[in-house]
């Protein structure tokens, strides 16, 4: 990818710096999708602010020692949004920026869905939906068994919650009292082909999580300050797992991508890429 921007050096995690990182994550992931001819830009963009907030300010990780035993665990259950994850990894030094240009190229470490055996910092191989939360329950339970204080965060899509395995895990997480576990739902309202509510409805989503024994907070998933406030107040209650419903917009940040189901896995044309990058450049200024 010839046109990839140079990354800024690591900066203190002010709201402004996190916003700037989120904009770069959008730019890079869209360039990656364009270059690869494959990707999931709509979901990359709805998750970008959440990923930037977590990785720049919340997660206790050491990019120089990605397997540090007491690190916080982050699991991208919506593994198809690997473009945003890899771009985030480049922001924090888990990936060399130049690796992004190899996204989905032959023999690249950057598979279309993340592979923990190829990319240090990836905690779980995801792609099939409904795998992340059960693994997250296991990571959080392991911390309880071992008496360690690492925390576990799982980012799911919203359409993904149609997979029953999530609700098996939700029951177990509450039964085990995993207040060290947080699920973040990227509630952009759209799945691959249509609105979630027109496919198999998820509402009343907050009430469902509450009924399963989780302590629920709703937040604007594009408001960095609000995301920081919510994540910094974890655990919300002792002995209960945490659910953050992040209300987001699929394709957020580019006018012609926002709230359009087709951008789930639409690959931008050259003109669309340039127009999108122009909007994102403007937003960053």
């Amino acid at each position, binding site marked *: 990818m010839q046109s990839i921007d140079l990354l800024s050096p690591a900066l203190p995690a002010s709201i402004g710096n996190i916003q700037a990182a989120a904009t770069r994550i959008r730019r890079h992931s869209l360039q990656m999708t364009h270059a690869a001819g494959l990707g999931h830009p709509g979901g990359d963009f709805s998750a970008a602010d959440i990923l930037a907030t977590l990785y720049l300010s919340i997660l206790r990780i050491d990019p120089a020692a990605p397997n540090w*035993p007491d690190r916080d*665990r982050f699991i991208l259950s919506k593994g198809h949004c690997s473009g945003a994850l890899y771009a985030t990894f480049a922001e924090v030094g888990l990936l060399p920026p130049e690796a992004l240009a190899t996204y989905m190229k032959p023999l690249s470490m950057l598979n279309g869905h993340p*592979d*923990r*055996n190829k990319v240090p910092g990836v*905690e*779980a*191989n*995801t*792609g*099939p939906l*409904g*795998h992340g*939360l*059960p*693994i*997250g*329950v*296991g*990571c*959080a*339970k*392991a*911390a309880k*068994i*071992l008496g*360690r204080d*690492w925390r*576990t965060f799982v980012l799911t899509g919203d359409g993904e919650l149609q997979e*029953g*395995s999530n609700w*098996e*895990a939700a*029951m*177990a997480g509450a*039964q*085990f009292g995993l207040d060290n576990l947080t699920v973040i739902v990227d509630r952009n309202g759209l799945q691959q082909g249509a609105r979630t509510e027109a496919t198999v409805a998820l509402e009343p989503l907050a009430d469902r999580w509450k009924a399963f024994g989780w302590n629920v907070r709703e937040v604007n998933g594009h408001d960095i300050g609000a995301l920081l406030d919510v994540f910094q107040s974890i655990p919300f209650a002792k002995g209960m797992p945490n659910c953050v419903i992040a209300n987001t917009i699929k394709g957020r940040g580019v006018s012609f991508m926002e709230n359009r189901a087709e951008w789930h896995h639409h690959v931008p044309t050259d003109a669309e890429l340039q127009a999108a990058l122009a909007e994102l450049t403007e937003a960053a200024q």
Partner: protein
Amino acid sequence: MSLHDCRKAFSEALIALAVADERIVAVANDSIGSSNLKEFQKRFPDRVVNVGIAEQNMVGVATGLANGGLIPYVCGASCFLTGRALEQVKVDLGYSRSNVKLCGMSSGVAYGELGPTHHSIEDLAWTRAIGNMTVFVPADPAETAAAVRAAAAYDGPVFLRISRLPVPDLFPPDHRVHFGRADVMREGKDVTLMANGTMVCRALEAAALLAADGIDAAVINLSSVRPLDRAAIARAAQAGPIVTIEEHTITGGLGGAVAEAVVTSHPVQMKLLGIPGEFAPTGSPTFLFEHFGLTPAAIRAAALDLVGSAR
């Protein structure tokens, strides 16, 4: 000859491991009793993770426990553990190379009269098709205990296929397991009987019957279905025809694995004994073994047929 349920050796070995290694935990799907984990639970109540009746979640949770540095032994009826959670076994364990030990209990047709829903006669085909998996079917209590220990010492996903059906002691108590190595249980030059699990003792009985017929049959225990001891199979194929015997469908299981090895090394005539690609009728395990020709007498007949046609 006294007979044993291998689940007892399984749980005793797991407790002994857990005493020595704090990383050992048991994961169950409301299967504490059927997996013989009650004593483990009594000894280590904080190291049993019972997820309830939810196999997909069970395998995912085990993956997370392994991510946290623990060594989970996931115990459940093999039919549900492998079938219901197959995608988790593929992605979370095999593809991810997670250090999780799947322990499929009451495999094969052990649940007899309960019917095909509870039979697990496809699990070897499913698990051995998955990259990075080690697939092992112990034949007696000593081999079961040794396999439990070997699984802990090995960093990666392992499927242990364990039966509840009574089997005699075949190995000494200090037996050691090496994944990927076959055991020659009996030397012979006319025909080789290859079996694992509950079928090894039957193959040995068949070999004794064949000896009375003047046929010198070798018996090989292929407990390690993956990795497969291709060298041992090639040596047997050079000696003569092969009969495989498995408590599993003959599609893709032990017989399939041996055939894949034989056709690429030294093609030789084979007979594949097992369940011939159909669901079992109602009946006890003993009845079903008779029905599908998985008895010493039926193995003998198959071997005689094969040796006769080879001569």
